[in-house]
């Protein structure tokens, strides 16, 4: 009798989180891929904290060796969905690289990348700019002090080798942005040069994130742009100095998304919503604050440091995840917004984010033809699915695990307000892609007439 009471009590207790409105999922055993970076956190947390379970999903989370393989595995159906670079669904959809219509209903995080230079380059930068020669130099650091080094190397007939993680990754656009803002030409893609070296003052090539520190050590790269924990790893191992984070390059920039193929999304609409619901819960859990302190991040780092997830040492993951960032061993700074998973309505899939990535692809020549402004809007709308996000949010609001203030209003048009929060202060308005393209000094420019087409 007693025993039965306990069982029923537990059963009743577990009905609440299971929720009356659990969706009718089409597929309940799923496989998601990820790359060993801390920003895969929402997917890992949704699994480990049981948010997928609450939606009736059994999810396997599998590490992938590199972004290309990850995308291929999603396309072949080996994986149901994955942690993707924001540029990946867009590039795949427009056919730069592998062609496949990929969609996203959830932005995993904002910020979270850094640019690290080798010790040698850092010393030369310090020589060029005396202000940097201090245990705690003033931030943000621009590439101005790097320019003389690049020029000198070029005079010697050498282009400094630098690394980024993938041709359509945020990192590629960020390090290009940072360099170009200081007048260093990072090189262009053309229809025949798919490496993006044309006219460059430097040579920016692809290296998978986990190998970044090793390439710095071996001299294959003198600088790189990568997500965490690979900048903090460089500090911990004493092989390089992170000079700038992407928070300084573009404040609260979108970073990774959760991507699935269009055909998968069409075949499994309810599962897609259920997954999005779990991810929203995970994002909210990650950003939960009490008295201005992120309360769940320690536990998140503990989970991420398991060898089957990110697997780096707990202390290294903790550096950036708990609101700090080590620029040097002597220079630990508070960066509460280094990883944003949910606040500022971060996880909503904004059309304007898609437009920004498209403008960068055009700026550096990955999109070889000039396109009209309307094309930018249409492409963004075919990749970003705020309607899925909003139905997931509506269902969570109904269950009481989310409030209406935490997500954009029903009639929101999907475009962020114009912003000038860039390192060079140039304004970006998602509705004016052509004007934005033409406002940069270095980069492809398109005829103004396209702005109204």
């Amino acid at each position, binding site marked *: 009798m007693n025993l039965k009471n306990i069982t029923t009590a537990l059963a009743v207790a577990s009905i609440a989180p299971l929720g009356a409105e659990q969706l009718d999922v089409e597929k*309940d055993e799923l496989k998601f891929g990820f790359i060993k970076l801390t920003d895969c956190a929402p997917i890992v947390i949704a699994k480990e904290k049981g948010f997928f379970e609450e939606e009736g999903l*059994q999810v396997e989370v599998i590490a992938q060796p590199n972004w290309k393989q990850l995308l291929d595995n999603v396309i072949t159906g080996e994986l149901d969905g994955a942690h993707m670079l924001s540029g990946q669904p867009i590039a795949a959809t427009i056919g730069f690289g592998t062609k496949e219509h990929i969609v996203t209903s959830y932005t995993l995080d904002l910020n979270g990348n850094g640019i690290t230079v080798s010790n040698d380059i850092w010393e030369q930068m310090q020589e060029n700019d005396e202000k940097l020669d201090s245990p705690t130099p003033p931030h943000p650091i621009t590439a101005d002090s790097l320019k003389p080094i690049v020029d000198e190397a070029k005079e010697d007939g050498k282009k400094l080798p630098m690394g980024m993680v993938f041709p359509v990754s945020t990192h590629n656009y960020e390090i290009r942005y940072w360099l170009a803002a200081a007048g260093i030409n990072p090189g262009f893609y053309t229809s025949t040069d798919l490496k993006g070296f044309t006219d460059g003052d430097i040579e920016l090539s692809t290296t998978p994130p986990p190998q970044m520190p090793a390439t710095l050590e071996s001299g294959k790269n003198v600088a790189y742009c990568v997500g965490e924990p690979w900048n903090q790893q460089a500090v911990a191992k004493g092989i390089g100095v992170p000079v700038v984070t992407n928070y300084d390059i573009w404040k609260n920039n979108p970073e990774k998304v959760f991507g699935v193929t269009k055909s998968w999304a069409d075949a499994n609409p309810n599962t897609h919503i259920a997954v999005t619901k779990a991810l929203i819960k995970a994002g909210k859990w990650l950003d939960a604050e009490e008295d201005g302190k992120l309360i769940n991040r320690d536990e998140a780092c503990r989970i991420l440091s*398991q060898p089957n997830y990110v697997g780096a040492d707990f202390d290294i993951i903790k550096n950036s995840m708990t609101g700090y960032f080590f620029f040097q061993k002597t220079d630990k700074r508070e960066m509460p917004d280094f990883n944003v998973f949910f606040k500022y309505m971060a996880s909503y899939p904004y059309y304007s984010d898609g437009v920004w990535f498209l403008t960068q692809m055009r700026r550096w020549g990955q999109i070889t033809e000039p396109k009209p402004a309307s094309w930018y809007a249409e492409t963004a709308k075919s990749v970003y699915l705020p309607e899925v996000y909003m139905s997931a949010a509506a269902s969570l609001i109904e269950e009481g695990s989310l409030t209406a203030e935490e997500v954009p209003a029903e009639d929101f048009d999907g475009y962020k307000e114009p912003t000038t929060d860039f390192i060079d202060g140039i304004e970006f308005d998602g509705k004016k892609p052509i004007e934005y393209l033409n406002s940069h000094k270095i980069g492809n420019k398109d005829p103004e007439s396209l702005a109204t087409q």
Partner: protein
Amino acid sequence: MSDSPKDKIKYGILKAVDISGFKVLDPPVRLLFGEEPQKQVKDIAKYLLLPTLFVSLCILIWHIAGPNHKTKSGEVPTPGKVLEAYADARRFDERENEKERAFNLTGQDRLDEIKLVEKELVELEQKAAALQEKSAEVAAAAKVTLASKIDPIQARYDALKAQNKAAKQKRTEALDLLAEQVASKDASPEALIALVKKNALVEEKEGEAESVLKDKMDLIRDNPPVEVKASQLAANKIEDEVQHYKKRLAILTKENLSIKREALLAKAEEDSAQLAAATTGKEALKEAKSVVRNSERAESTSEQVYARTATIFWQTKRSIATVFVGFIIAAVIAIPLGIMCGLNRIFMACMTPIISIFRPVSPVVWLLIFQIVIGAFFLPDPASHPLFLFMNDALNPLAFLQTNPAMIFSASTVAMCALWPALVNTALGVSAIDKDHLNVAKVLKLGFWSRLFKIVIPSSLPLVFAGLRISLGVGWMVLIAAEALSSSDGLGKFVWDEYQNGSSQSFANIILACFVVGVIGFFLDRLMIILQRLVSFDDGSATA
């Protein structure tokens, strides 16, 4: 040689020892049976004791030399660290078992387990807190020591920098003055050039002095006291355990299969009660649908399987399975082709260019080609491809391998690379058959098939098996590379993932995997030796 039963046993054992290729065990066996004790003891010392000592010496050298080689990814792990890594791998595997158990437990067992886990969790949390405290103390102490070491140098560095800056200012002034004088023809241009040169030299020297101090500080910062890291790692280990217990508890109370099922059934029951009380048709229909949905969901829930995380043990099994799949494909293709090559010189001439060109191609290239070519067969939904449905659902005992396209790619790569040694050796074996044998066949007027099965194959078997042995060895080596590249689960992926993890444990784990690969490779080779001996004409007598 008498034929006493004792001798029979003795020679039986000796033969087994010989066939399995462990000939070093021969003297101890003979000694056990009292055959020429002196000679055996001598042999044991020579062939068993000395090699053991040598290996021990190697391990000792490793133990001593390892920690002295410091890399940026930590020092080379000692044998002890590798053993520790093995223990951790075991623990990781156990954790998965515990979680799976928690997922499947029902009734009273589940409640008992909850109590147990809760109790242990409390203890663990206390332990973790104590260790964290200690670690914080150690870190604080180390910080003080570090400051006491760094501060004087920093002060000296700052002073030196200020001094150099002042000196530079002075030199610049002197230089400007001299330049003015040169312009007004009061001083010789040579003097100005000399001064510029001299200044550059002085500046370089000053810079060097500065960087010496800076390097000193960096060196101190880069080498924090070992106990800081050690105490932090100790605390982390327990914290990991705490995390695991929390997860276990969550599975037991929330994610458990029976709980989920009961909740859904309870919901269905509730709905049917509401259905009975429904007053409008619309309401009744809604409730009826809900009943059906929840009972269906309860049904499908009970088929759910716990999503296990890959561990090194499972990955080892999968690698072995993959290598055999590849090896068998290779053998099935290579042996008939090899026989045809051996029998027919024209066919051999046709095959030679193909063999010569494709044999040296790197496995990595094959893997990429297979990924593209074979991958196309499984589109668009590999999970419902008949092959995988058969392997993962119908063939129950093999379902644990989770066959997927990546495994097929790896196996094909293994097959492609393992093909050649078997093919070449078979051809060689067939063409080297004693002419007399073939003549006998002619005399007896044997048909093609009986000639093939009675003469050709039996007499070429030893060489065929020698080729297969090389093939399996090549296949095993190739597989690890293929898995690392294709992220097909297995030891290769384990090594690659660990390399990517880059944690303080990773290096030890990679070396652990290195030994696992080596030991398994050794046993695979032994297996082939046994097969080879069994088919050889000389019946594997102890003296062979």
